[in-house]
C-alpha cells in the first residue's frame, strides 16, 4: 500500500489579496497548508516612471518620482535631488539640509508607524493599525502645514526645499515627537511581549546575513540579520554625519527582529529630529536653480537610506534639460525577491508574516 495519495495544489495569492500590500501576485504551490514553492508576479502597478522621466525636465521629474514610493515620498524627492545636485554641482544651503533631514526622519517615523500597524493587521490584530495611523497623522499634519500635501510632498527640490517651515512648525514638531515617544510604550505593550505575537514571529522567516547581502536586501531588514550597514552612517549623504544616533541592529534575522529593529529606528529618528531642530540655522532655503537648468553631461548614482532599505537613483545626463535616462532602485524590490527564498517550507500564515515583516510596498517594486 502506498498510503494516501496527496496532491499539491496552486493558490493564487493576489493580485487582490488583503495582505499583499498593494497588488502583488504570489503563485503558491501548496501541500496542504505548507508552502512548497513561491513565484511572485509583479507589474500590476507599473507606471513607467522611468520612461515618463525621460521626457520631463529635471524639476518636473521630482513630483513624478514622488509616486515611486509614496509612503516615504520625501526620500524619493531626496534621492533624485541628490543625484541631480551631484550632476550639476549645486551647493545646498545649510538650512535646507537641516530641513531635509528633519523631513526625511519624520517621514521615516511615519513609514515605520505604518509598518507597525500593517504588520499587526496582517497577523490579525486590528487595533495597532489605527494607533499607528493616529500618530502618523500628526506627522502628516506637519508636512501639510509645510508643503501643502499629505502624501506626495514634492518638498525637497533640486537645490534645496520648496518652502520654509511656518513658525508654528517647531513647537508642533516637538510636541509630535514627544507624543510618539510616549505612545511607543503603548505599542510595545500591545505587541512586543504578547505571547501570541511572539509565537507568530519568533524564529519565523529566518534570513541569514549572507543570504540577505547576496540578494541585496537592505535597510532595517538587513540590520535585523545582524549586518550593521546603514547608509546614513556608512556612506553619509546630506549632513547625517553631524548627528549622534545609533544604528539599530538585531541579530536573529527573524520576523520578530525585523519588527523590533523598526521600532528601534523610530527612537533613533526621534533623536535625530531632536538634534536637527536644535541646530536649525537661519539662512536661505534654496540654491539658485533655474527650473530648466541643464546639468553637464555625465552619469551619477546616488543612494540614500530609506525606511525600506537602499533607495537609489541613477541619472544619465546628455547635457540637455531633460535626463537621458533615470533608473530607480527601491529596497522593496530586493526584499520581494528574497520572499521565495525564505518563505518556502513555512505555512501560508508564515508567508503573510514574512511578507509583512519585510515591509514590501508594491509601487516601489513596480515603479
Amino acid at each position, binding site marked *: 500500500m502506498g498510503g494516501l495519495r496527496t496532491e499539491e495544489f496552486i493558490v493564487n495569492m493576489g493580485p487582490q489579496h488583503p495582505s499583499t500590500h498593494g497588488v502583488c501576485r504570489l503563485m503558491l504551490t501548496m501541500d496542504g497548508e505548507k508552502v512548497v514553492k513561491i513565484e511572485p508576479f*509583479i*507589474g500590476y502597478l*507599473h507606471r*513607467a516612471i*522611468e*520612461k515618463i522621466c525621460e*521626457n*520631463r525636465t529635471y524639476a518636473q521629474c521630482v513630483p513624478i518620482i514622488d509616486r515611486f514610493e509614496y509612503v516615504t515620498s520625501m526620500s524619493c524627492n531626496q534621492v533624485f535631488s541628490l543625484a541631480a545636485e*551631484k*550632476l550639476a554641482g549645486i551647493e545646498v544651503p545649510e538650512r535646507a539640509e537641516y530641513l531635509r533631514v528633519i523631513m526625511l526622519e519624520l517621514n521615516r517615523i511615519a513609514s515605520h508607524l505604518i509598518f507597525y500597524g500593517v504588520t499587526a493587521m496582517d497577523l490579525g490584530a486590528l487595533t495597532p493599525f489605527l494607533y499607528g495611523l493616529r500618530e502618523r497623522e500628526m506627522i502628516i499634519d506637519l508636512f501639510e502645514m509645510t508643503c501643502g500635501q499629505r502624501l506626495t510632498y514634492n518638498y525637497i527640490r533640486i537645490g534645496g526645499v520648496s518652502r520654509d517651515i511656518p513658525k508654528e512648525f517647531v513647537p508642533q514638531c516637538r510636541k509630535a515627537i514627544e507624543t510618539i515617544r510616549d505612545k511607543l510604550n503603548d505599542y510595545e505593550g500591545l505587541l512586543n511581549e504578547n505571547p501570541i505575537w511572539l509565537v507568530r514571529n519568533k524564529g519565523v522567516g529566518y534570513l541569514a546575513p549572507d543570504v540577505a*547581502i*547576496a*540578494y*541585496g*536586501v*537592505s535597510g532595517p531588514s*538587513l540590520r535585523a540579520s545582524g*549586518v550593521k*550597514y546603514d547608509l546614513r552612517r*556608512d*556612506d553619509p549623504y546630506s549632513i547625517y554625519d553631524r548627528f549622534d544616533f545609533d544604528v539599530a541592529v538585531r541579530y536573529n534575522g527573524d520576523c520578530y527582529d525585523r519588527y523590533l529593529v523598526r521600532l528601534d529606528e523610530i527612537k533613533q529618528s526621534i533623536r535625530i529630529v531632536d538634534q536637527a531642530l536644535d541646530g536649525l540655522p537661519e539662512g536661505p532655503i534654496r540654491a539658485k536653480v533655474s527650473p530648466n537648468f541643464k546639468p553637464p*553631461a*555625465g*552619469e*551619477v*548614482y546616488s*543612494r540614500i537610506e530609506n525606511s525600506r532599505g*537602499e533607495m*537609489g537613483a*541613477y541619472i*544619465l545626463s546628455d547635457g540637455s534639460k531633460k535626463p*537621458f*535616462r533615470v*533608473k530607480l*532602485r527601491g529596497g522593496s*524590490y*530586493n526584499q520581494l*525577491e528574497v520572499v521565495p527564498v525564505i518563505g518556502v517550507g513555512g505555512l501560508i500564515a508564515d508567508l503573510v508574516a514574512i511578507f509583512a515583516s519585510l515591509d514590501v510596498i508594491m509601487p516601489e517594486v*513596480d*515603479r
Partner: protein
Amino acid sequence: MTGDELKDYVARQFEGRMTLLDTGRFDPMYEVKVPDLLEVAKALRDDENLKFDFFCNLGGVDTGERFEAVYSIASTINKLRLDFKVMLPRDGAEIESVQEIWPGANWYEREIWELFGINVKNHGNLKRFLLPDDWDQGHPLRKDWDAPDFIRMPEL
C-alpha cells in the same frame, strides 16, 4: 579606503580590464568589456580589499547607437561603492548573467531583458515581468520605441 585610493587600487588591480570613463566625474565609472564581465565581477567580489558583496543596481541605457548595462555595486564590509558599465552593440546585445556572483541581480536582469531586449545568458527565468503577459509591442525603454497609444509630453 577613500575614493582616490579606490581609484588607484582598481587601476592597479584591474589594469586593462576596467577602464575609467570620463562620464564618471563624481563616482568613478569604469568600462568592462563584455567577455571579461563575469571574471571581473567575481574578482571584485572576492578581492580582499574590495569585497563588493552587495548588488545595488543594474540599469540599461539605450544611447541610440549602442546599449549599455550599468552596474552599481557596494561593499557592506569595506563601505565602498563602485559603478561599471558594459557597452553592447545594438544588434544582438547579450550579457552574461551575474547571478552566481550576486543572486540579487536576478530581477534586474529580467528587467533589462524585458525593457531593452538585452539578452541575458544563463539567466534561467526570462519571463514577462513588469509588462503584461501578452505584451507584443517591443521593448519600451528603447529610445526608438513607439506605440500607437503612447502619448508623449507635448513639447512646449
